């Protein structure tokens, strides 16, 4: 009985991951299990051998060591790169600026070319490939040193943002060329450093093209530059980082401009990043591509341009084959959404967050971009995309529009949150009511995540829900200075409540069929 469950799960996971490179953890577990199956003669030695070949058990022992070597090489490259940048910053006069520039440029070329050569070698020798990747990482950092040196030579007054943007573009081009996701992450990191520093020294920005305008459309820029790369490399991590970058820069715009909008629009745009993340669907790209191809007048030119934009989603689904799932990145986006939503709920569950005095200084600080059409364009484009994505989410072929239960619940959550914002904006602070609603939402969300985590057999949502719930209880205990007797009563009531919910849920599970998506 126990065996069949476990085997079923393992094989199911194996089927899902077939074609993709299975994780070390899974392969190790499979190796252990397969060994047991062979000794208990559930499978023959041949079958074991086949499994061993398919999942490369032989390389399991070396995998950890190889990864360690990779980390050492990568760290080495990063340190050398930082050394080069610091060398530029020292502005050492014993070498003339021309010699320094020549040396640094040649070093960059050498690193990139040799790294490319090593990485591009045919043959199974992974060792050189790893060294090649490390050299390419070093080359990307040396590009920054070169750019910084050039700026230093001519005593440029351009800000860090302008340096970082130029640098990120160069690294990004390299990442596209040789399809290395970690170079994309490096480019995103550099861009992020520039972006956040630009918010501080925006007054000094020299170039309007690279300056204020790009800051105002940053969410769109990141989406256009990095999401296709994430598909091209089939890298969920790069997708997650891009999604964080898009939504945090979007939030900056919303927090700034939202205040000048009517209350109900402000309340709605405040939940826009969450709605955007939840509704993200990989297949929407494919769908849009198909729709565009149907438009006759757009065919010759738009199709070509669309193809470059759409190319990663359509082709990489087959080539990269990160997962045979139709939607490789949707779970990532949804996970991020739940993570950030629960954090926001936690922050807003404090009473101070809803008190007038706490929010006044923030709300009265001057607007950065009140009259900017570009900000409005960015917001409306992303809002339109979000609405479209939600419509697509409930769209069924030849059936009426209907959301799946999970998405409907999330939509309700977002609706309640927006309604609460609107009420606060329109009627002034409502500390008691808003705090209560937020606490209920946070508790339900945490419990829901735990439930989903248990149902889907994945640990992360379960543990995150548990952590958030514990955090919430601890925060409430520490926040309110009430008598111990009252506290004790609250704990007992909460405990009884949980037990009742648990028993009800148990009953519910027995009597009803629960559909887990």
């Amino acid at each position: 009985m126990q065996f069949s469950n476990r085997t079923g799960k393992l094989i199911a996971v194996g089927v899902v991951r077939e074609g993709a490179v299975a994780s070390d953890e899974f392969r190790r577990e499979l190796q252990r299990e397969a060994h047991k199956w062979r000794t208990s003669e559930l499978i023959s030695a041949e079958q074991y051998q086949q499994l061993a070949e398919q999942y490369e058990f032989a390389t399991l022992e070396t995998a950890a060591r190889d990864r360690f070597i990779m980390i050492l090489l990568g760290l080495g490259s990063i340190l050398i790169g930082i050394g080069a940048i610091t060398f530029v910053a020292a502005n050492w006069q014993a070498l003339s600026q021309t010699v320094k520039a020549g040396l640094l440029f040649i070093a960059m070329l050498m690193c990139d070319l040799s790294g490319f050569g090593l990485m591009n070698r045919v043959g199974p020798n992974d060792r050189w490939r790893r060294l090649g990747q490390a050299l390419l990482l070093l080359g990307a950092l040396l590009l920054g040193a070169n750019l910084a040196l050039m700026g230093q030579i001519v005593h440029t007054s351009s800000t860090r943002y302008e340096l970082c943007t130029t640098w990120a573009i160069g690294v990004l081009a390299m990442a596209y060329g040789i399809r290395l996701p970690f170079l994309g992450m490096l480019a995103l990191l550099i861009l992020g450093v520039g972006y956040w520093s630009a918010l501080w020294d925006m007054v000094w920005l020299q170039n309007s093209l690279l300056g204020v305008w790009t800051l105002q459309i940053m969410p769109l820029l990141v989406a256009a530059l990095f999401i296709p790369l994430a598909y091209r490399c089939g890298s969920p991590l790069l997708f997650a980082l891009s999604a964080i970058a898009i939504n945090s820069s979007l939030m900056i715009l919303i927090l700034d401009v939202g205040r000048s909008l009517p209350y109900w629009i402000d309340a709605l745009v405040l939940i826009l990043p969450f709605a955007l993340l939840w509704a993200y669907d990989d297949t929407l790209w494919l769908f849009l591509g198909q729709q565009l191809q149907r438009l006759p007048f757009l065919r010759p030119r738009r199709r070509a341009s669309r193809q470059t934009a759409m190319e990663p989603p359509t082709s990489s689904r087959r080539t990269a084959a990160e997962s045979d799932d139709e939607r490789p990145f949707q779970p990532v986006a949804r996970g991020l959404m739940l993570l950030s939503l629960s954090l926001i709920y936690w922050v807003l569950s404090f009473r101070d967050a809803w008190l007038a005095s706490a929010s006044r200084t923030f709300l009265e600080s001057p607007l950065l971009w009140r009259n900017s059409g570009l900000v409005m364009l960015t917001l409306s484009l992303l809002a339109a995309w979000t609405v479209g994505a939600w419509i697509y989410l409930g769209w069924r072929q030849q059936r009426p529009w209907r959301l799946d239960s999970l998405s409907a619940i999330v939509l309700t959550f977002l609706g309640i949150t927006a309604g609460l914002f609107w009420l606060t904006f329109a009627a002034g602070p409502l500390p008691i009511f808003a705090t209560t609603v937020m606490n209920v939402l946070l508790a339900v969300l945490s419990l829901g995540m735990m439930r989903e985590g248990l149902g889907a057999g994945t640990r992360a949502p379960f543990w995150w829900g548990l952590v958030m719930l514990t955090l919430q209880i601890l925060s409430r205990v520490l926040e309110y200075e009430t008598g111990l007797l009252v506290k004790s009563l609250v704990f007992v009531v909460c405990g009884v409540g949980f037990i009742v919910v648990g028993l009800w849920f148990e009953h519910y599970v027995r009597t009803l069929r629960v559909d887990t998506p």
Partner: protein
Amino acid sequence: MMPPPSKSRWPQLGLWAIALPLLLQTLLIVAVPLQAAMATLMGTTVILRTVPVDPYDPFRGYYTTLRYDISQRGVLSTLDGWEAIQANLDPPDTPQLLRPGQSFYVVLADQTQVEAPSATIVGEPWTPIRVTRDRPRDLPPHQIALKGTYRGDRIVYGLERYYLPEAERLDLENRIREAQTGTEQPRFFVEVRIGPLGNAVPIALWLQGDRIEF
């Protein structure tokens, strides 16, 4: 449909995969000093009065932030032509500090040449005489137009940083401090070169008559 992925996890990449990105990176590197190089090669040397402050940039090292007489709105507002451009610089109802800045030109004149046309004393500051919205043409030889960008009450010329070697930085700081606390009027100037389009690049510092260039 795409052909099925090849057995190898790492398809071999063509040479363009490295050549194109490298070309772009090289262009980016060359583009940084391009404008400054043009100003240096084709420009005119001008001396400006300044006040230094000292920050640090982790990528490009120590620099001194230079603020000029003409960086202050108060100084510019005494010049000819200010009324004409002021309306453009201050559109009503805009906390416009962070919009792309409005650009204008400051005309500078070499006073020593006005007083004694044959003298060519370097190391004396030029003085601003008027401001215009459009780039002035046909200026007399002892005058030149410098392009500035207006942001709120601050005016930026692209001349705000002078990078200093780490080794000489403290020494220079001390000299600046001495000059500022001394009895004599501090004479701290920046030598810049202004290109044909009004873009400028800082070349050297002048401290109490000594020229310092890095």
